[in-house]
């Protein structure tokens, strides 16, 4: 669809940028999956490896920053090229943040290994993690193929993540009321759920960037808001019955 640049090295530089984003996306997806596996299997070694591997995302982000600055200075990209370069910069920042959250999940997984398990909450977290991991993979696909429809689907999927997060929030509050000894574990689980939910938000931002990259316009409709955890109250009577 879009033809090549007259100056071939310009295309090379843009392609390198795209590969670096793809690499970051793959890494962020794996970091999230590993942190969730570490949590569900109580795998200390895997949790530690996630914490260590986060530095790789930071390095890739810095590398992309430098690449973008060089391209802005030397190529002075215009129109879709300008969008490609700016969007790469923004997506790499989103992925780096997503990686930070995965690292945080791994840290809390380590802490949780020292507490007894509570209810089936971990299963819900695994489900959330699988959805968000799929969103990362799909949004990178959408980016690589300039696929705005896929980007919109990713954005819609975040709705499910928010809903699971809200219901998990209620569930964990209930466990805490049932038995105060659950409070430590549940609090860490709450933060883990929040971390995964935040990764979903970053992926949604990436989906919006993909739309902008392809169309040159910001996505129009408002995203449905379905995370009601910040206004959720569980009354003592609720759990009494």
């Amino acid at each position, binding site marked *: 669809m879009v033809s090549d*640049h007259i*100056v071939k090295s310009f295309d090379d530089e843009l392609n390198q940028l795209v590969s670096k984003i793809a690499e970051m996306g793959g890494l962020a997806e794996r970091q999230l999956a590993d942190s969730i596996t570490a949590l569900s299997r109580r795998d200390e070694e895997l949790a530690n490896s996630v914490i260590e591997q986060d530095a790789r995302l930071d390095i890739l982000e810095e590398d992309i920053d430098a690449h973008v600055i060089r391209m802005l200075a030397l190529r002075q990209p*215009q*129109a879709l090229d*300008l969008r490609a370069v700016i969007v790469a910069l923004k997506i790499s920042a989103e992925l780096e943040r997503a990686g930070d959250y995965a690292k945080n999940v791994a840290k809390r997984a380590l802490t949780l290994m020292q507490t007894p398990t509570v209810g089936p909450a971990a299963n819900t977290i695994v489900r959330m993690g699988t959805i968000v991991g799929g969103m990362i993979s799909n949004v990178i696909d959408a980016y690589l193929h300039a696929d705005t429809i896929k980007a919109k689907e990713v954005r819609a999927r975040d709705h499910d993540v928010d809903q699971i997060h809200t219901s998990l929030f209620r569930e964990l509050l209930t466990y805490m009321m049932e038995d105060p000894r659950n409070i430590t574990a549940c609090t860490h689980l709450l933060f883990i759920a929040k971390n995964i939910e935040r990764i979903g938000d970053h992926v949604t931002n990436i989906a919006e960037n993909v739309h902008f990259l392809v169309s040159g316009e910001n996505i129009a409709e408002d995203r449905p808001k379905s995370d009601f955890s910040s206004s959720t109250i569980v009354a003592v009577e609720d759990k009494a019955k």
Partner: protein
Amino acid sequence: MAQALRISETLENAPVKAKASKVQVFYGAKQALTDIDLEIPQNHVTALIGPSGCGKSTFLRCINRMNDIIDGCRVEGDITIDGVNIYGPGQDVVQLRARVGMVFQKPNPFPKSIYENVAYGPRIHGMAANKKQLDDIVIDSLTRAGLIDEVKDRLDAPGTSLSGGQQQRLCIARAIAVKPEMILMDEPCSALDPIATARIEELIDELRNNFTIVIVTHSMQQAARVSQRTAFFHMGVLVETGATEQIFTNPKDTRTQAYITGRIG
């Protein structure tokens, strides 16, 4: 962003200074421009961009009828300035060229003194009643062209003794001395270094308060920096016109996109 919005708002509300309708230009049997429709907003800078040979200079020359002096060149269609067709019967071409000044790619000062270069136009148009008034016009024009500090002690020196960038500013001073309404510039910075270019661009930005400016440039960055409206020509056709910001961030036509991003069209 607020700045960008303000520019596009003033652009939309700007009165139309000049308007081309169905302009066709032929050099002998060869057609150089086809069906050009373009509105030029008052007190704004309109940039004409496009590949070499697409007809930018040809179009620019239509606006002050400079094509009249090219043998075998024929212009059809209408160009109005303030609603009056400049190709209509009874139009005074000399008068028109005083209203619509021109600055060329290569600075072309007359082989006369700096003072005479600027004084020539006002004198032949009878704009000064005496020497004092003429002096005032010369000083004012050189001031507005940002050249006065560099030449005030050598007004009698030949114009050609100036540097390229200074000569170009002298030509701009000469163009504005006759108080034109529009200034046409054909690649005015192509022979200048980045500093001299920046000074001319700053000057263009200032001049648009008093004049309507149309500039032909091969530098995409220059078009983006100095103009509020951009028109993209391609093989004798006007492909796309829009707010400069839109043309450089989100052009609608694939030919525009290919050109400004340096792609194989």
